[in-house]
């Protein structure tokens, strides 16, 4: 196994008001997490279209994580409630198609939870690293 060689690509969608601020706080507190995680800022987790997640896998991502405000704390009051439903159904469907359920995750991270952000990312990267390369949702053309 070439576990040590494999550097996963991880896309993290973070809502502007909680999780992106949480990531900033992790930075402020110099809490390390792997550089494989790249954050995309969205106004709210509810902005994340399932198409973006599939797009990330197509383009070579090995894991996609979506972070938003805790339910009940959404800056827009209800955005993350919709996210929760959409992603629950999407993840179940992807798994139904045989896509490893570990590849996708939703995590609620508040602006105060810098430590949780770092811990979550460490955990997620470890999980994806253990899982290996995304083969089931890859687009070979992109890797050429």
């Amino acid at each position, binding site marked *: 196994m070439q576990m040590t060689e494999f550097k996963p690509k991880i896309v993290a969608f973070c809502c502007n008001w909680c999780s992106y601020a949480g990531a900033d706080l992790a930075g402020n507190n110099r809490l390390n997490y792997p550089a494989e995680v790249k954050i995309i800022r969205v106004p709210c987790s509810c*902005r994340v279209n399932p198409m973006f997640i599939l797009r990330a896998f197509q*383009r070579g991502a090995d894991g996609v994580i979506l972070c938003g405000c805790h339910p009940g704390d959404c800056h827009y009051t209800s955005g993350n409630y919709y996210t929760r439903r959409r992603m629950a159904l999407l993840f179940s469907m992807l798994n139904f198609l045989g896509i490893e359920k570990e590849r996708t995750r939703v995590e609620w991270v508040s602006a105060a939870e810098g430590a949780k952000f770092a811990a979550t990312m460490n955990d997620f990267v470890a999980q994806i690293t253990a899982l290996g390369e995304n083969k089931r949702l890859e687009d070979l053309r992109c890797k050429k």
Partner: protein
Amino acid sequence: MQRIGVFVCHCGTNIAGTVDVKAVAEALRYEPGVVISTEYQYMCSQAGQDMIHEAIRENNLTGIVVCSCSPRMHEATFRKTAQSAGLNPYMVEIANIREQCSWVHKDMEIGTEKAIILGRAAIAKVNLNAPLTPGETPVTKRALVIGGGIAGIQTALDIADAGFPVDIVETKPTIGGKMAQLDKTFPTLDCAACILTPKMVEAAQHENIRILSYSEVQDIKGFVGNFTVQIKKKARYVKEDICTGCGLCTEKCPQKKVPNEFNLEMDNRRAIYIPFAQAVPKVATIDPNYCTMLKTGKCGVCAKVCTAKAIDYTQKDEIMEEKYGAIVAATGFNPISMKPFDEYAYSQSKDVITSLEFERLMNAAGPTGGKLLRPSDGKHPHTIVFVQCVGSRCSAHASKGKEYCSKICCMYTAKHAMLTRDKYPDTDVYVFYIDVRTPGKNFDEFYRRAVEEYGVHYVKGMVGKVSPEGDKLMVQASDLLADKQLHIEADLVVLAAAIEPDMSARPLATMLTASMDTNDFFTEAHPKLRPVESPTAGVFLSGACQGPKDIPETVSQAGAAAAKVIGLLAKDKLKGNPCVAGSDEWMCNGCSSCERVCPYGAITYVTKEFRMPDRTTALRRVAQVNEAVCQGCGACTVACPSGAMDLKGFASSQIMAEVDAICK
């Protein structure tokens, strides 16, 4: 294609310590659209900003990417810089290579590689940016307060004092609300009428306040700064401007058997009535359900006795349309119905009453003239049992009652107990409670006085059953602390009924597109940070319609809501957030999915005629986003199946370009 400038900040060693900034600037130079890529010690410094300014001018840049600290830190700074150089401020993107890179990674190689990728993503995004301009809408400098209780009155007074006209719409013939029905207020025991009625009068006399009593809101259209509201003025069959409130008609009216709702139907009034002596406006109203003249056309006594000739049996409901810039919901509360709680025998015995009824019994203007007499036989009660939490704090699985704490009951029960013992020291007073909650200034002291000074028997435990036996009420209860069953022979049982939002709140919320929680309390825009605003811009919340509150809390929230309204009305124009949703009419299905997920009611539909590609014309229902109301969350963009709905500044194409750049 854009002409993009890339500016990589060292942030002293904050970034440069872990990221090879020169290598980043060099690597990003060859990205599509980039015409200049450079680095500098502190981009946010004046010198750094000047450098960006110059670069924009010299290279005719159409977009810039700053690789620096978090956009939460300096996005605004660099937007201003761009604007000063003639670039649209929304053509700026920030790659966060400090908080999300140099500060969390230790290895220079890894940090540099990631910084390049983050820069690439920002470039990919800015390549698809479009200049954005915030929309402006004028503000109608007038507020509407819905509900004329203490919350509404206080909000209206504060707004009016700031110089803005306010209308109060109240469904009852008089303002005053629940507070007008109270006898004394806790914890000071001052008389409710004494502190409320001066405010009512002040409101009535205020040059900026118009009271629309006996009126209802029928329809609300528009958005923040520009609401159009239809108000129905119900016919009161008395000319409001002529009636002097002398009350002669209310004495002469032959229809004497009308239950008096002000006294909770514990006595009667006439068909023409003034709810109470200090009513505002002090004008008589004919109750069409009981007036013989209106029902049969035979009577007319009131018209005959009215010296002012104010009676007009032909009056009709009147619809008026008014414009407002802000709306305050202050619809208040009601005690819940006691019907489902028949274990307390509320419907079986007149001597089982609610706390509000108790207030009226104790009130000098009440049905008993302020004497505490049993409703059944007018006798003096000697043993009184107060039951707390009737319908409050129920289990989620219970078939009745509310899950929440009604918040005010502990205190008013203590007040009732104390007042009873004070006036009638010969009565035994029991209070059954689950917990006594007294978190408020002088609240706990107040409750302790009831126990310690006034000898009220506080029993931790619930009353299981009240059974009328003869003229007694047999109360079965448990004392949890003593772990024993109690049987009390009571003369009067007072139920501290839970409170719930007024029934008018739900239809009002629909009209306002304001959201409500499962209990029909209005939801605030943010539970901590925006407690008096509803998520719908321009709609504010005052008083118990947002959640149970006592009077001081209500008054302070009313003032806070007023301050928000004043802040809004003080503006001539509202500048919106330009990162708002927009719908492509050609792709829109008109399916309402977006409308349903919009927390702000920013989406409306119009039916328009379209010339279709196959040269036919078709009427199509399409969504339109009100940019003044949209807050830019993007929920609609995902709900939209066709992709007609997109979010400016966070367009699908932009986010996907970022994804592509990151996964490369």
